[in-house]
C-alpha cells in the first residue's frame, strides 16, 4: 500500500489549509477562466472581452464594439463552456481524490475504476431508449448514468478487494480495467444495435465540452454542488482512514458508513459529469496527485485545492482542445489522456517503490 512516510505524523498534527494556498488556487481559477473567455478560434480581442464583461456588471456601461454575433460567442458559447469546464473538472478531480482516500489507493480515478464507463453505459441506454429529456437536473440521462456508475464501482470494489497474491493497488486497478472493458463492450453492443442514435452516443466515449450551452450547466451544477460539499465535509475522515480501517474505527469513525457515503457522492457527481461531457479520463489522477506532491498529503489540503485546480485544469485542457488545430477541434478526452497517461505511469512507479 502507498502510504507516505510522514503519514502518522500527519494525522496527529493539525493540518489546515493556509490562506496563501487558497489564494493561489483562486488565482489559478480566475486566470484560466479568463484565458478561456479570451482565446478561441474567433478573435474577439482581449480588451473587448474585458469591456463586455464589465458592461454586464450593474451600474457600469462600456461599449465594447462587439457585434451581436460576437457577444453570442462570448456569452452563449465561451462562458458556459468555461463554467462547464470548471464544474466537470472540479467534480472529476474531487471524485478522484475521494476514491483515492476511501480505497486507500493512489490510482483510483473515476475513469480507471470503470465508474465513467458504467456511467457512459447508463447514459447510452437512456439515450437509446429515449426516455425523455429537458427536465433540468431531473433529466433521466444523468440518473441512468448514476445507476451505471454505482454498479460499476461496486463491481470494481468487490472484484478488486479480494485478498490474494496481487497487492491491493494493482488488484483494484485490474478490476477497474475489467469492469471498464465490460461496460464499454456492452455500450458498443447497444450502439451497434441502435445505429439511428449512434452518432449522438459516439461522442460520449471521447468526451466533449463543445456543444455546451447553459442547459448543460444548469443540469450539472446542483449535482456538483451537493457531491463536492459531501466530499469536502468528509476530508478529515479521509485523513483518518489513511491509517487503516481498524485504527480509524478505534478513533470513533464508522468506516463502512463513511466509505459508502463518500463513494456514492463521488459516483453520483462523476455520473452527472459524464452525462454532460462524456468520458474525460485521468483528471482524477493528475490533479489530486500534483497537489499532493506540491502542497502535502493531507486530504484537508488536497480536497479543497483539488476543487479549484480540477476546474482550472480542465479549462486549460479545453483551451488546448479548441486551439491546437483551430478551426478544427479535438476531443478534450484526448488532451487529458495525452497528459494523464504518462503521469499515471509515474504515479504507478512511485506506488511500487513504496
Amino acid at each position, binding site marked *: 500500500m502507498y502510504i507516505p512516510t510522514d503519514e502518522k505524523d500527519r494525522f496527529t498534527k493539525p493540518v489546515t489549509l493556509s490562506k496563501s494556498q487558497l489564494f493561489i488556487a483562486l488565482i489559478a481559477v480566475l486566470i484560466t477562466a479568463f484565458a478561456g473567455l479570451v482565446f*478561441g*478560434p*474567433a*478573435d474577439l480581442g482581449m480588451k473587448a472581452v474585458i469591456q463586455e464583461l464589465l458592461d454586464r456588471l450593474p451600474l457600469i456601461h462600456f461599449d465594447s464594439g462587439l457585434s*451581436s*454575433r*460576437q457577444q*453570442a*460567442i462570448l*456569452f*452563449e*458559447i*465561451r462562458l*458556459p463552456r468555461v463554467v462547464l469546464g470548471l464544474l466537470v473538472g472540479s467534480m472529476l478531480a474531487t471524485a478522484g481524490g475521494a476514491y483515492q482516500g476511501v480505497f486507500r489507493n493512489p490510482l483510483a480515478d473515476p475513469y480507471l475504476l470503470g465508474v465513467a464507463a458504467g456511467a457512459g453505459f447508463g447514459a447510452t441506454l437512456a439515450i437509446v431508449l429515449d426516455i425523455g429529456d429537458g427536465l433540468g437536473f431531473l433529466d433521466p440521462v444523468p440518473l441512468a448514468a448514476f445507476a451505471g456508475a454505482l454498479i460499476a464501482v461496486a463491481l470494481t470494489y468487490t472484484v478488486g478487494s479480494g485478498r490474494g497474491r496481487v497487492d491491493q493497488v494493482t488488484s483494484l486497478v485490474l478490476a477497474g480495467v475489467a469492469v471498464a472493458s465490460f461496460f464499454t463492450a456492452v455500450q458498443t453492443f447497444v450502439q*451497434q444495435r441502435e445505429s*439511428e442514435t449512434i*452518432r*449522438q452516443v459516439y*461522442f460520449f466515449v471521447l468526451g*466533449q465540452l*463543445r*456543444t455546451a*450551452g*447553459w*442547459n448543460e450547466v444548469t443540469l450539472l451544477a446542483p449535482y456538483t454542488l451537493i457531491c463536492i460539499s459531501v466530499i469536502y465535509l468528509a476530508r478529515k475522515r479521509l485523513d483518518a482512514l489513511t491509517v487503516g480501517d481498524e485504527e480509524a474505527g478505534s478513533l470513533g469513525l464508522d468506516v463502512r458508513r463513511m466509505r459508502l457515503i463518500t463513494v456514492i457522492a463521488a459516483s453520483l457527481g462523476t455520473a452527472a459529469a459524464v452525462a454532460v461531457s462524456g468520458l474525460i479520463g485521468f483528471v482524477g489522477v493528475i490533479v489530486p496527485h500534483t497537489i499532493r506532491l506540491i502542497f502535502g498529503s493531507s486530504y484537508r489540503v488536497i480536497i479543497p485545492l483539488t476543487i479549484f485546480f480540477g476546474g482550472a485544469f480542465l479549462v486549460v485542457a479545453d483551451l488546448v482542445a*479548441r486551439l491546437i*488545430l*483551430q*478551426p*478544427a*477541434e*479535438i476531443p478534450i478526452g484526448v488532451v487529458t489522456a495525452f497528459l494523464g497517461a504518462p503521469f499515471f505511469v509515474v504515479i504507478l512507479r512511485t506506488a511500487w517503490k513504496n
Partner: protein
Amino acid sequence: MKLKSNLIAFLGILCLISVSCSSDSSNGQVPVSGGSESIEVAERIISLSPTATEILFAIGAGEQVVAVDDQSNFPVEAPMTSLSGFTPNIESIAEYQPDLVVASYDPGDLVSGLEALEVKTVLQSAASSMEDTYAQINELGVLSGQEAEANELIETIRSDLSEIASKKVGEGLTYYHEIDNTFYSPTSKTFLGKLYSLLGLANIADPAIEGGFGWPQLSAEFIIDADPDLIFLGDADWGESAETVAARPGWGSLTAVEKDQVIPVDTDTSGRWGPRVVDFLRSVRSSIEEISG
C-alpha cells in the same frame, strides 16, 4: 418497418433463387475485350457499398446483383439483405455464392478472406473527386460486362454536371455543410466540397485545410464567427432542422438563420458519390435559386 425489411430480405432471396437458376443456362464466361487478360463477367454480384449498388443498377447490371448490404436502400429493387458493409461477415457473404464482391471498406480481412474462398473482391473506397467516381463506374462496367452502358452513364453525368454548373448561382455566397450536430464539416478538398465549388460557393471550413483536414470538426464559435450565408444540413435525417439550429446557443443571430437560409439536404444523395450526385447538386442549385428569387 421491421415487416418492410423482412419483405425486402424475402424479395432478395427470391431474386437470389431466380438468378441462381438462370445462371445455369448462361455460360458466365464471356471474355471482356481490351486488356491482355480476359475478365470473366460477374454473374452473381454482392455489393456491400450503397454507392456501388446505385452504380450497378444505373449501368444495367442490376440483374446480376444477388445481394446488397443493409444500407443499400436505392434503388428499391436492389436485393437488400442483412449483410453489413461496416462489419462484413465473410461466411454470410459466401453463402450467397458470389463471383464478385464490391465493398467500400475492408476492416482488415475481407479481401484476403474472400480471396481465400476464390471470390473476386473489389474495393471501391469513397471517391475524392468526380474522376474517382467515373473510374469506379467504369470498373464496375468492365466487371459486369456493361462497359458501354457505364461509359454512357459517365458521359451523361459529365454533361449534367456541366449544365448545372454553367450558372454560378452560389457566386459571392458562403456556406457551411453540417455532417452531424457536433459540427463535422467537409472542406473544399473533399468530394462534397468540390461539388459545392461547382456552383461558385465559398466554404467556411476551408481554413482547416491547412491542418490537413478534409473533414474537420469545427468549433461552434468558429462557425458563428464565419457567419455563413447558407447552412446545409446533412444531418436532417438525424433530427436537425432550421428550428433546432436556431435554438442552439449563439446561433440565433446567424445570417443563414435570420434570413431563413438553413437548407436540409438528402443524406443519401449527398453522401453517396455515385450517379445521384447530379440530383443532389440540382436540388442545391434550386434551393439557392429559390432564396435569391
